[in-house]
């Protein structure tokens, strides 16, 4: 039975990648909390993860030949959506501190969860290799 780390790690590998990317997007929002006319952005995580799992993100290059270098799975600007603010501000900024902080903490916790799952999978492998 051929063994592949990609299938063994399952959804957690693209999930980790997307979580890290989302952390970056949310950090950009929080960095621009006082920038006039800045529009907060976010990743639709479920949609992006489904696309990443299928290996067809919006801008993913398709490998049509076995010798093609596999493009890194990435999420591009087209997957970023604009956030609808609950309250508008006078300067046109749509970053809401509490919303972004909640999203960032939530994202960080889920990242840690994926890390824990991957760690567990590697420990399982190690147990199998050592046989004890």
């Amino acid at each position, binding site marked *: 039975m051929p063994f592949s780390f990609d299938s063994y790690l399952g959804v957690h590998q693209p999930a*980790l*990648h997307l979580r*890290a*990317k989302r*952390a*970056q*997007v*949310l*950090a*950009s929002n*929080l*960095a*621009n*909390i*006082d*920038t*006039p006319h*800045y529009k907060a*952005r976010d990743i639709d995580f479920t949609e992006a993860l489904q696309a990443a799992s299928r290996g067809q993100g919006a*801008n993913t290059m398709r490998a049509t030949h076995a010798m093609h270098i596999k493009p890194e799975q990435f999420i*591009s*600007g*087209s997957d*970023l959506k604009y956030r609808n603010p609950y309250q508008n501000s006078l300067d046109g900024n749509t970053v809401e*501190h509490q919303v972004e*902080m909640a999203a*960032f*903490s939530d994202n*960080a916790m889920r*990242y*840690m969860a994926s*890390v824990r799952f*991957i*760690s567990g999978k*590697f*420990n399982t492998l*190690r147990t199998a290799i050592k046989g004890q």
Partner: protein
Amino acid sequence: MSLLSVFDISGTALQAESIRLNTTSSNLANANSISSSHGGTYRARHPVFAPIFKEFGDQQENVGVKVLGIVESQTPLRREHNPNHPMADEEGFIFLPNVNVVEEMANMISASRAYQTNIEVMNSAKQMLMRTLTIGQ
């Protein structure tokens, strides 16, 4: 590595907010700098923030915040008739800076809160990275 760029992004924000805090403290320090001429009077200064964009294919990706420049407030200066003041001009007027102390205090709180937020973001990103480094241990 996306998580490492969180440090860069939050770093630009810390830089921008500290400039804002600096201008605020300068404004508050000079709130009572009386002058005898219109041109020589201190004017409130405020930084102008703008997002930094990086081209990512045909899309733009935001990678932090920058200070475009520091502008002087266009609010008219306060002019008081006080002939006994040592700085009074020949007509007996003194000029006071157009610093709005209440506005500056609100700015100060906003800047320090934003600073704290970005520190928290950096701490979270650090925890995420440290946890990532322990995969397989």
